[in-house]
């Protein structure tokens, strides 16, 4: 294969417990740590391993987001990607719009495989890979935990509710990664220095012919209803008694 394209999203770091604005208008972003969406990081790791096995020549990381997303693309370059493209927008776009932008990049770059995370851990949508595959009229292998590339086909093991589903598909295609696909590498300092010299192209959304076509309006973001505070029991006998009181075990 010639080229692999990996899509990275800048999200609130998975270790951060998000706090919401009291007026329901969204998340408090001030000063919180942002990272590459962990599923996307796994997708990038997989692309790098494919290239390191000499099954691909080049790994291009792309993102659609604010100018700050350059930080995540630089991290992607430090991990080992060859070059980066940011499609810059200051709006939070819906997955369908993102998929259309990615399709434009696909048409420009002609990748043999597009890899991205199965979902972003902020909006938890789990849509972009499937939508890109639909618009591109190519195969999709979602929730992939094992990927094997052949000459013009690939095989994916997919984590589904019933177990592990194996599919075979023609290239080019879209693959979305699940957690157990691999364990991403740590970035070393010399790589971070080297990444600063790698090419990072910034394109304005409008210059790519993209427009924000939002279909949904967010009217509020609120905390989930809290569960009632529980109690500690001292031992198994007390636990069984409490379960009996609640009618959850017989006797």
């Amino acid at each position: 294969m010639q080229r692999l394209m990996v899509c990275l999203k800048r999200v609130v770091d998975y270790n951060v417990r998000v706090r919401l604005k009291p007026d329901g208008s969204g998340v408090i972003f001030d000063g919180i740590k942002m990272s590459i969406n962990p599923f996307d990081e796994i997708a990038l790791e997989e692309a790098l391993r494919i290239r390191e096995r000499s099954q691909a020549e080049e790994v291009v990381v792309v993102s659609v987001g604010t100018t700050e997303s350059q930080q995540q693309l630089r991290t992607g370059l430090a991990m080992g990607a060859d070059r980066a493209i940011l499609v810059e927008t200051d709006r939070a776009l819906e997955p369908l719009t993102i998929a259309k932008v990615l399709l434009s990049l696909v048409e420009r770059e002609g990748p043999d495989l597009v890899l991205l995370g199965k979902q972003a851990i902020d909006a938890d949508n789990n849509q972009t890979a499937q939508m890109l595959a639909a618009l591109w009229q190519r195969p999709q292998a979602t929730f992939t935990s094992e990927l094997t590339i052949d000459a013009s086909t690939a095989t994916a093991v997919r984590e589904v509710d019933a177990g592990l589903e194996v599919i075979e598909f023609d290239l080019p295609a879209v693959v979305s990664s699940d957690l157990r696909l691999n364990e991403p590498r740590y970035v070393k300092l010399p790589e971070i220095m080297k990444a600063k010299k790698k090419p990072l192209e910034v394109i304005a959304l409008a210059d790519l012919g993209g427009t924000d076509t939002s279909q949904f309006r967010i009217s509020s973001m609120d905390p989930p209803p809290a569960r009632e505070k529980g109690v500690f029991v001292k031992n198994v006998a007390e636990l069984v008694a409490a379960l009996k009181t609640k009618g959850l075990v017989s006797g």
Partner: protein
Amino acid sequence: MAKVLIVAEHNGRELNASTARCVTCAASFAEGAIDIAVLAENGAELARLAAAIAGVNQVLQVDRAENRWPLAATLAPQIADLAAGYSHILGPSTTFGKDLMPRVAALLGVGQLSDIMAVETAYRFQRPVYAGNAILTVEADPGMTVVATVRTASYAQAGDGGTATISAAELATDLPVHTRYVELRADSDSSRPDLQSAARVVSGGRGVGSTDSFALIYALADALGAAVGASRAAVDAGYVPNDLQVGQTGKIIAPELYLAVGISGAIQHLTGIKDAGTIVAINKDEDAPIFEVADLGLVGDLFTVIPELTAALKRS
């Protein structure tokens, strides 16, 4: 006036319970105007089962050899062809629906709503984001088809007693051949209660320590007639297969009773159990976050507590 098409999930022989849960969601805003699409190789029996779900008006049976396996690339264009005349196309937020519905939406040129947990009106919904740490209220444009997945843990199954008509839908849709099903590897013991629909679930985490020690979890589950689940840490460590994972990226469940054993309670796990009736946590670390959501907490060594609990439950 809303008119809903639900995409049935099945394994070729039986409907998945997620289908009847989607019907309950649809009935909350489109009573009397709910159809189900059954795409299968030979769907007569499945269509009969779908027609028996209370509240269903019509079942569209699409039999094609290509529909033997649930491939999104094959199913999506057929559902897009069936979509005309419907205001809403719903599928379950299982891996089947999550794989399929965004592809359907993109073919229809519309967005998709993931994991609907509550319906305020036919065009106003609630859904969880940030691993369930926030709830979004979202309004859809009534001028566009709403394609959505239904968070199955938020809805009970619709009952039976339905008398829907069944019609065979002949579709001339061109289907791609670029994606081919190979096999399903199911490692879990299918004689046990199903994790997604069980009334009781016992889950083990990293604290269980090994595949062998998971026998303690299975024994406790057997004493309770419960399904077995696991945290991501336990699956990553290889103690149990992936289809037992409960949480943000695994299964979202709503049993009456949930026992978390040796699970610290990462937010990604907690989001999978928030709708459980009663949560019991057993952990040796009294500061484990799991105790913040537990109704009943027991601090102790699971290797002594679980055998004792199993024995006590067998006696009662």
